[in-house]
């Protein structure tokens, strides 16, 4: 009864928004949204999970950091449809005393690509099971099933939520042309970056997608031989040297960069 009322109240007067009824969880409201108001056969459409957090509450990135749990999605789709992985926007770092976590607060959209089969017609009934952990000082797990019905059409019109997708795209880490190499030096991991304009290093931060290589604390910045060097502590759970380390490097006033540092075999 409650969700029915919510969807009536939220439908804008001009058009039916392509969004599920919102789910009001503890400290976070979620809805399944679509970039376009119709799905086009044979094309990739973008869906998204919108999370509106209460002030001071947050959910987590794919690598949540020292604690927490990433938001997880499971889709139930019509035959022939398939959903890809979340295109995670650049998260922010949360500093909780001596622990570091990565995630999102405020109003965020987690976009997901949806492959629409060439033979699609009529309408698509899309069901998403979402699970998350929302924390402030305490943590509250949540889960919800969100549904969205979208028409199949020859052309798609941009939906009311389209601007959110543009924002989410802009918030993606960009792939840089920097040359990055990683090496182990005792109980530290050094990543050297060439071609990166990181200036004096003021405000530079970096973190990894894999929690088992570098520790989650911010790295130290230095310069050596014309390269910027980020020195991380090794993760307590480091077991073996990976082939490469995926990092996200943040610099104030610039787009976040995704960097792939190959591990140096030479000492």
């Amino acid at each position: 009864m409650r969700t029915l009322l919510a969807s009536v109240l939220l439908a804008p007067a001009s058009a039916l928004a392509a969004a599920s009824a919102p789910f009001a969880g503890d400290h976070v409201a979620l809805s399944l949204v679509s970039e376009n108001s119709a799905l086009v056969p044979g094309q990739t459409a973008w869906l998204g999970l919108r999370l509106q957090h209460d002030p001071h509450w947050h959910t987590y990135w794919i690598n949540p950091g020292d604690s927490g749990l990433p938001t997880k999605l499971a889709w139930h789709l019509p035959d022939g449809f398939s959903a890809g992985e979340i295109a995670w926007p650049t998260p922010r770092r949360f500093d909780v005393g001596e622990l570091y976590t990565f995630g999102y607060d405020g109003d965020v959209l987690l976009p997901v690509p949806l492959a629409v089969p060439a033979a699609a017609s009529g309408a698509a009934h899309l069901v998403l099971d979402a699970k998350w952990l929302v924390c402030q000082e305490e943590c509250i797990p949540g889960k919800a099933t969100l549904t969205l019905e979208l028409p199949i059409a020859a052309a798609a019109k941009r939906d009311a939520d389209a601007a959110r997708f543009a924002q989410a795209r802009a918030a993606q880490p960009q792939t840089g042309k920097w040359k990055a190499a990683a090496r182990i030096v005792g109980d530290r991991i050094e990543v050297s970056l060439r071609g990166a304009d990181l200036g004096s290093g003021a405000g530079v931060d970096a973190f990894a997608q894999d929690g088992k290589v570098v520790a989650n604390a911010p790295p130290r910045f230095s310069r050596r031989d014309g390269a910027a060097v980020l020195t991380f502590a090794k993760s307590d759970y480091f077991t073996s040297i990976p082939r490469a380390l995926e990092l996200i490097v943040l610099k104030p006033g610039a787009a976040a960069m995704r960097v792939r540092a190959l591990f140096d075999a030479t000492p």
Partner: protein
Amino acid sequence: MSLRPLVLAAACALSAFSSLALAAASVGAAAPDFSLTDSNGKAHTLAEYKGKTVVLEWNNPECPFVKKHYSSGNIPKQQADATAAGAVWLTINSGADGKQGHVDGAGANAFLAQYNAKPTAYLLDPDGKAGRAYGAKTTPHLYVIDGGGVLRYMGGIDSIASTDKDDLPKATQYVPQALAELKAGKPVSVATSQPYGCGVKYGS
């Protein structure tokens, strides 16, 4: 190449990492000693248990991950089985006073009674000294120390990071596995795993 910037950078790196030092414990090394009071006012040290296998379990009664493992009976059963086999199980709370998850002795005892949990003792570490010495980050966070005082396992309670009790039958429980391997004189097959849970709320 100028040596000085390198030396300065190294000095900065070292001082930064001393503040990052939430991990003095590592598998294969001697486990750090501690001296803590339990929920009934009795003192315990790690050293007094030399000769016995000791399990350390970081705890926060209100954490949904802890509740998953207690309300399902998973941790209480592991505590009962381990202590029946001669091991010592110490549940530890490093939540600072005033922060979420902190308990006093009465609160700890009430929590244990609620779930019929019987560890050897529930130790109170409000200044976080033991937690920091072990690098305890989450609740739960588990450590297994052999009779010689060497750390043999550290990490998560099991292999599936979630708050769902439904995941328990499918998950590998790392502590009973390590205890069985130690008892059989075998190497611990999973010596570390990524811990998961709520963050430990240390004081500043």
